[in-house]
Structures are given as C-alpha cells and as structure tokens.
C-alpha cells in the first residue's frame, strides 16, 4: 500500500521549540472519506499537528504528503488551495461582517489582488452561499452581523467558511466547544454528512461526541501516538486509561 492511496500521509514528523519536542517522529495516515478523531491530554501536541499540516508551524523534520504532494515545503495559502481546510480552536470569523459576507470572502474565487478587486457577486456565488448556509443551519441569519451570533453558531459559520471551499481534507480543532447539547447533536449530524465526500480530522475532548462521529481514534501523548483504533479499542487500552487517570 503506497502513501498515495491515503489522502494524508504523515511520516516521521518532528518539531521542537527550543529543544522541547512538541511532536516527536509521528506517523499518521488518513484514508479517503475517513473521519478521524485525535484525542489526548493537554500538551499532547494535538493542535501542533494541525498547525504543522496546514503550514502554520514549520516542521523540524519529517514529511507530510497530501495526495502525494509534500506540504511541509508549501506556504499556507497554497496548502489551502491544494484542498486542506482548517478550523481554529476559538472560532475565528470576521465579527463585523455579515454571515453572508463571511461566506463570500471564503468563496474560492478572486483570490489574487486584482481578482478580488474585480470580484462580482454572481448567481452561482449566491446559490453556493445559500446552499452552505443551509448545511450549517444559518440560512435565515445570512444578513446578521457575525459578531452577534451565538458561540455555537460562530463555530458552524467557520465550518461553513471551510465547506464553501469544498476541501478534500477538513481539520476541526474542538468544533463543539461551548455548544449546547442540541447544538452538539446538530454538529455531529453535520460532520457525518460532510465526511461522505471528504476526509475530516477532528480534535475533541468530549468522549460522548467522539463516540457519535469517530470512524477511527488516534490518541496522542507527548507528541507520540499512544494508541490507535476504534473508539472501543482505544478506551480499553490501559495505557490510555493510565495517561488520562494519571493526570
């Protein structure tokens, strides 16, 4: 089985901040249309892994192949254009723009300076935005100023801003943080829907939620993979229990 069969193939990935190895020769493979959940105690290096994949942090060593393309050498925007979307831990949206404009800015057209200058709000743009807005349960809030949305809605909006670019790999850092139970369920449905035609990596603490969505779970500890498998396998792995209870 060669790396190119995977959507994402991380091999021997290492990054160190002033000597401290946040990620330590990590190997990780994501299949097409897989929804992978990464869990682990604080400081395990979960977010750092996402940073490395999307180019926010530059790796000290190792390789990240996305559909055979080496990401470690690429700039952030190139990685995004290659089809990797990333949602941040705290919802990162444009507070003083409307929901519609938030989605519009994320629409994958007119990404150059003059493209942006000449960008026109054509019918297809409009349709696409409404389509995505439906998926993220915000279709009747399109004109609302994003800053006024509830925390959960902001999370959805950011997911929507990624979906509108239709990435092949979607990375979500704690998507249900600060959500009501109702919203969590909706989010779970949302994720299950969107992972039909793309791969998704989710970082999450809420085990109930993880159970609902995870195809496969990876447990990180001190920058290394501690355990990997289905939710049940992982939960029954005593090393994992030790790590969690040990805290």
């Amino acid at each position, binding site marked *: 089985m060669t790396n190119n069969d995977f959507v994402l193939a991380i091999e021997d990935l290492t990054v160190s901040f002033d000597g401290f190895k946040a990620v330590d020769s990590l190997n990780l493979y994501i299949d097409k249309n897989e929804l992978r959940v990464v869990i682990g105690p604080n400081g395990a290096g979960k977010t750092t892994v996402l940073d490395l994949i999307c180019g926010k942090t530059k790796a000290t060593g190792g390789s990240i192949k996305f559909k055979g393309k080496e990401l470690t050498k690429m700039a952030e*925007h190139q990685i995004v*254009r290659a089809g990797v979307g990333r949602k941040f831990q705290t919802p990162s949206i444009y507070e003083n*723009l409307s929901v519609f*404009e938030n989605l519009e800015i994320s629409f994958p057209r007119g990404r*150059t300076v003059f493209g942006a200058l000449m960008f026109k709000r054509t019918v297809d743009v409009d349709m696409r935005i409404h389509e995505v807005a439906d998926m993220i349960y915000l279709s009747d809030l399109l004109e609302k100023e994003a800053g006024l949305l509830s925390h959960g809605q902001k999370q959805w909006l950011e997911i929507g801003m990624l979906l509108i*670019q239709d990435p092949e790999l979607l990375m979500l850092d704690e998507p249900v943080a600060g959500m009501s139970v109702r919203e969590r369920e909706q989010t779970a449905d949302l994720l299950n829907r969107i992972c039909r035609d793309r791969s998704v990596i989710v970082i999450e603490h809420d085990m109930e939620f993880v159970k609902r969505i995870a195809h496969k779970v990876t447990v990180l500890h001190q920058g290394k993979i501690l355990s990997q498998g289905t939710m049940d396998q992982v939960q029954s792995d005593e090393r994992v229990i030790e790590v969690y209870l040990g805290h």
Partner: protein
Amino acid sequence: MNIFYDRWLGGRQGAIGLLLLALLIFIVLPTFLDIYRLNNVGKYLTYAFAAVSLVMLWGHAGILSLGQGIFFGVGGYCMAMFLKLEASDPASTARQTTPGIPDFMDWNQITQLPFFWEPFHSLTFTIIAIFVIPAVFAYVIGAAMFKRRVGGVYFAIITQAIAAILTILVVGQQGYTGGINGITDLKTLHGWNINTNSAKYILYYINGALLIGVILLCRYILSSKLGRLLLAMRDKEDRVRFSGYDVSNFKIFVFSLAAIISALGGAMFTLQVGFMSPTFVGIVPSIEMVILAAVGGRMSLIGAVYGALLVNYGKSAFSESFPALWLFLMGGLFIGVVMFFPNGLAGLYQTYAKPTVDQFLEKFARKSAVVQSTSLNEKKEVVE
C-alpha cells in the same frame, strides 16, 4: 442603483459627503479666501493626500507606516528635479562655474549633470516617475517586510528608520540632492510661471480635482471584495490566510497604492509651494501625517481631508496668534483626539451630526415621495 453611484460615490451618504467636500474646496474656500490663504489651503490639501493614503493603509488594512513622508518626498523631489532643470537654463545660471546645471551642484563642484537627473528633462518621464518610483520603492520594502511577516509596531519602526536613513542620505549627498536646503527657487513648468496668482489658482483646482479623484478611487477599492478583505486581514489575518489568500500580496498592494497617493501629494506640494526640502522625508512629518488621519478619523477618507485642513489650519493660526504656545495646543489636540475621540471627526459626525442629517434626508425624500401615513413616518424617524 448603478455601479458608479453605489461603488464610486459610496451610496447616498457618501455622495452627499463628497458633494459637500467638493463644494467647500471648489467654491466656498476660493470665494472667501485671498490667494495667499488659498495657496496655504492648497498646501494643506497636499498633506490630505498622505492622510487619505494612511486611511487606506492604517485604518482599513491595519498597517501603520511611519514613513509616508518618504513617498511624499519622492513625489515632491521628482517634480522638483524637473522644475529645477527648467529653472537652471544656461542663461539664468551664467554666473556659475558650470552654467546650465542646478546651482547647488555648482556649489558642490559638480561639473556635469548626474546621469539620474538627465531623464527629468522630460515632463512625461517626470509624471511617470512620480507614479512608478514610489510604487517600486514601496513594492521592494513591502515585499521584503510582508513576505517575512514583519508587521505592527516592527513595521512602523522600520519604516521610521528608513525615513531616517533617507533624510541622512538626501542631506549628505547635497551635490546631487540640494542637501538640507532642498531644491529651491523653482520658476516655470514648460515656460508657464507657477508663481503667478493665476497659476496658483489653476494649480489649486488641479490639486483639488486630483484629491477628489483619489478619494473616488479609494471608495471603489474599498467597496470591492478587496476592501472587505483588507478589513478581514486587519482583524483576523490568519483566517484570511487559511482561506487561501496570500495575505502579503494584499498588503504590498495597499502599501504601494498608499505610496503613490502620497507621492502625488508631494508632487502637487512642490508645484504649489515652489520648492521641496528633506524636512518632508523625515520622521516628524511622517508622524504628523498619521496624526492628520487620526484627527479626521482613521477609517474615513473624507474625514482625513478635514483632518488635514483642521490640523494645519490650527497650526498656522495658533502660530500666528501665539507663536510660543502653539506646541501646547497641537500636543493637546493629538492627546485629546486619541483619548476622547478615537474615531476623530468622522466619529463625531457619526454620533452627533449623522442622525439629524439622516432625518433631514428622510424628510427631503418624503417631500418628493408619494404621500404616506404620518404614523408610519413617525415610526421611520424612531427607527432612524
């Protein structure tokens, strides 16, 4: 309505604001001021270019440049070099050791025109240079900085340092630049004497027209997706980057644009004041330009113009009535604006004047509109 109205003029509010400004510049001031005062206003309006450029750069893109003076200076010097060459024809410089070259070169024992002065014999080249040189210069600085993610305070201080370097160079290389004296004693533009009153009137109107033009252009840019992106970058740079945009390119673009706008102001300054000096390249004027934008309201293009007028008028008014005290008043103004009116004049307008204006417009519209039930109108006013 149509693109022009919505995007260039910026809708009804924008159109009216612009109309008032145009009225002020083209009709009110010329009728009420003698040529000396008007010429001063013209000078202030050249600073307004720099202020407007900072509204784009700082207010909307969140990039604070303490080096706009650099570009103002570049534009001014380009124009000055052309005028100086015209002013130093062999006849009028017969007294020099080497007639036909600018006087300051002669004083510094330079015997023939330096190569980079040659092209400035041509007005066409000069005008092109006024746009291209600052743009290129800004592009180089911008590329070097923004590609490497230098931003915020660092950028501000580095631009400041660049301004410092340029000043030292201009002052030091006086054989080629005129040194601390600058390039003085400029007389004619293609034989047209720029020091006559009629010339000053004409230049004033050209200046005003250019300024309005620049504001329209900026309005257009801000109303495009590019404009929204600038705001987005200012607030959530990473998000924009991870939406697939190469943020640095946008910054370089707006930085270069701002450079050109400032340079335009500089060129008009030289034409109206009749000389250019390194005092504009330096740090102090660069900071004062930021102040102009701040006083006007860092987000408002039109505010910047009023800011420039107000501050500079205040400056010369204070210094005429109490020469020794005007620094107190200026300093106080800066502090006051930052502390109490962070949104400057535009902010004041928004909070106090705008409601009434809207109401007025509402009534105005209603008069011309078909009859409506009063109760509904009451509601409207409450809503406004």
